[in-house]
């Protein structure tokens, strides 16, 4: 409701602005004009066209290489590239800085924004603006890609962002948001940055249909960002997967978390998250699919956990989480925990390791399933014991514990394990 009214307010304010601009234009008896930039035109640099332009103008840039230091856009204009003109930062400068509302940047290739640790040089930086659109650009070998701070209601769509650093410390983030609200990040492809998408203090925003792969640290790094959602994204082969921390009310659904493999890589790392929903995601071949620490009241439903090292690592400080209707297939460990007590609910999941039977053929196994094996419990507490993995001894103690549970959390049990995979 609130969101609707805000959007309504946005729309109305946009219209009011439009009318005001129209009236001003009418009074000046001039119209919004299109300025062309290129080798064959009057304006050969973007800077010169910008200083000539007024609010509401469009600047059309034709193909070519533009290297003009830092371009500062302080007017509400549309900057549009024709057949991908290249704007270069010469490995020294920030390429473009937008400080005005209602700016559109479309169809450029941004190259070589230089590394600068004090100013966090980026290809495009938006600072304190509203209603801007960054669309269909290509970003190549920049320190930071798109950097937004203290901004609202911007959309970042269809951009391709690629970087090539090999060290985390010399690499910036692909799409970086700090203190923003009502943002839409859609259909972008981000590769090779430090964090693919970075959210800090962002509210009511949505991340959709993005591909974030081969980033050095996290595919998505998400902190203090309440009431956001991310859906239908692919997070693959990132150094440490996806981290979501210190946040309430997040929707995470229909994402793919794949091949985030390594000693400290997580498909999805959740720290201090509450009242959130994780559904319809696919987690495959991550060293740890979901790690939960200090998480409360999260509902995890209809996810597929396939061939991960650990499907769930549930720390003792997580309570009242519900795990239902998930598929756990072919994981080395389904669930591990570090406590003998359990305050979370597991019900109606499919476990490929389940060996029970179903006499009344209702699809629900007659024997409850305990997903925490003795060995996974021991190895969670004493990590070096993992060198015994795949030993005959481990199979024997797991079997013994399964028959007479003494050490593993007795309450962590699925009383209605499904016999068949849930579609």
């Amino acid at each position, binding site marked *: 409701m609130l969101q609707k009214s805000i959007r309504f307010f946005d729309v109305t304010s946009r219209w009011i602005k439009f009318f005001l601009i129209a009236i001003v234009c009418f009074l000046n008896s001039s119209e919004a004009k299109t300025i062309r930039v290129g080798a064959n035109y009057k304006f050969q640099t973007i800077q010169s066209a910008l200083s000539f332009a007024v609010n509401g103008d469009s600047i059309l840039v034709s193909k070519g290489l533009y290297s003009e230091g830092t371009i500062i856009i302080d007017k509400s204009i549309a900057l549009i590239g024709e057949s991908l003109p290249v704007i270069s930062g010469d490995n020294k400068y920030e390429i473009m800085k937008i400080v005005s509302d209602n700016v559109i940047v479309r169809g450029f290739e941004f190259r070589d924004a230089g590394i600068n640790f004090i100013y966090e040089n980026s290809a495009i930086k938006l600072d304190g603006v509203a209603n801007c659109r960054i669309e269909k650009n290509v970003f190549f070998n920049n320190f930071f890609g798109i950097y937004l701070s203290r901004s609202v209601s911007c959309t970042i769509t269809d951009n391709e962002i690629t970087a090539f650093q090999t060290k985390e410390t010399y690499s910036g983030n692909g799409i970086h948001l700090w203190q923003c609200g009502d943002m839409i990040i859609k259909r972008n492809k981000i590769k090779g940055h430090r964090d693919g998408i970075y959210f800090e203090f962002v509210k009511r925003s949505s991340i959709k249909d993005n591909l974030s792969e081969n980033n050095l640290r996290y595919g998505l790094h998400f902190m203090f960002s309440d009431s956001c959602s991310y859906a239908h994204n692919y997070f693959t082969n990132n150094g440490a997967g996806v981290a979501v921390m210190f946040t309430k009310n997040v929707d995470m659904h229909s994402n793919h978390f794949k091949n985030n493999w390594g000693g400290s*890589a997580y498909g999805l790392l959740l720290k201090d998250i509450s009242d959130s929903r994780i559904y319809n995601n696919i987690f495959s071949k991550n060293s740890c699919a979901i790690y939960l620490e200090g998480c409360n009241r999260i509902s995890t439903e209809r996810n597929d956990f396939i061939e991960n090292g*650990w499907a769930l690592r549930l720390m003792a400080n997580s309570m009242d989480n519900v795990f239902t209707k998930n598929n756990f297939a072919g994981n080395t460990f389904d669930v591990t925990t570090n406590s003998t007590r359990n305050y979370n609910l597991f019900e109606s999941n499919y476990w490929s390791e389940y060996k029970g039977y179903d006499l009344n053929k209702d699809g629900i196994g007659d024997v409850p399933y305990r997903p925490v094996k003795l060995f996974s419990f021991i190895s969670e507490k004493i*990590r*070096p*014991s*993992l*060198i015994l*993995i*795949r030993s005959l*001894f481990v199979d024997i103690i797991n079997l013994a514990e399964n028959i007479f549970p003494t050490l593993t959390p007795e309450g962590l049990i699925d009383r209605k394990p499904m016999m068949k995979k849930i579609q």
Partner: protein
Amino acid sequence: MAINVNILAKIIRYQIHDISRSFWLFIYTLFFLLASYGLITFSSDAPKVLISLMNITLIIIPLVSIIFGTIYLYNNKDYIILMLSQPIKRSTLYFGLYLGLVIPLILSFLIGIIIPIVFSKIDLGEHFDVLIFLFIAGIFQTVIFVSIAFWISSVYENRMLGLGLSIFSWLSFSVLYDGFLLIMIHYFQDYPLEKILIGFSLFNPIDLARILLILKLDIAALMGYTGAVFQKFFNTNLGIIISILSLIIWTVVPLILGKRRFAKKDF
């Protein structure tokens, strides 16, 4: 000590000929054929197949080798006495018997695993080195456990005692040793155990082969710091040389000890 190579070769040839007709060797080959065929047809994922093959290799091969080896020497007592009445050195006979058993066992293991892999469409590609490693591990398990078996049956005249000891030593290598390790890890969990564990893994051929294979597959990432320390050691040339050396010592020492007893034994 000089061993007459001609006579040795003759004994080996006779033994291989004899054992090839053995029903149990046939079962052993068939087991590997069926197991690896089944694994390959039911799973298309190469690492999974390799892990299952590893489980079979590290449990079944030591068990079969040690039991087969013990029984073999007891059963061939008449033949040994007959041979000793000939002008043949005892050491030549001993090594002849040993190689005559080890070679067919290794061949049936290799045949059992290679044939299904060749005839299947499974893509081992990047895991080819793991497969080679699996073969080496299997060969070493055979060689080591037959030599332990020969030692046991040369020392003890009583069949039941010898067989019991064989089974017990298999049990200690594959189960009890790991239990002991777990207890040790539990008691000393506050200390950095990684290097000590590397040392302990060298004292058990089954554990050593298992750890080497696991480190080759990317399951090592689950082990975090421990895995990293292990990988750092076993991926260096020194680590590989030390582990191969340890496996060779595991083969040679029981074999020599067994030969000594065999040389002095009053049949």
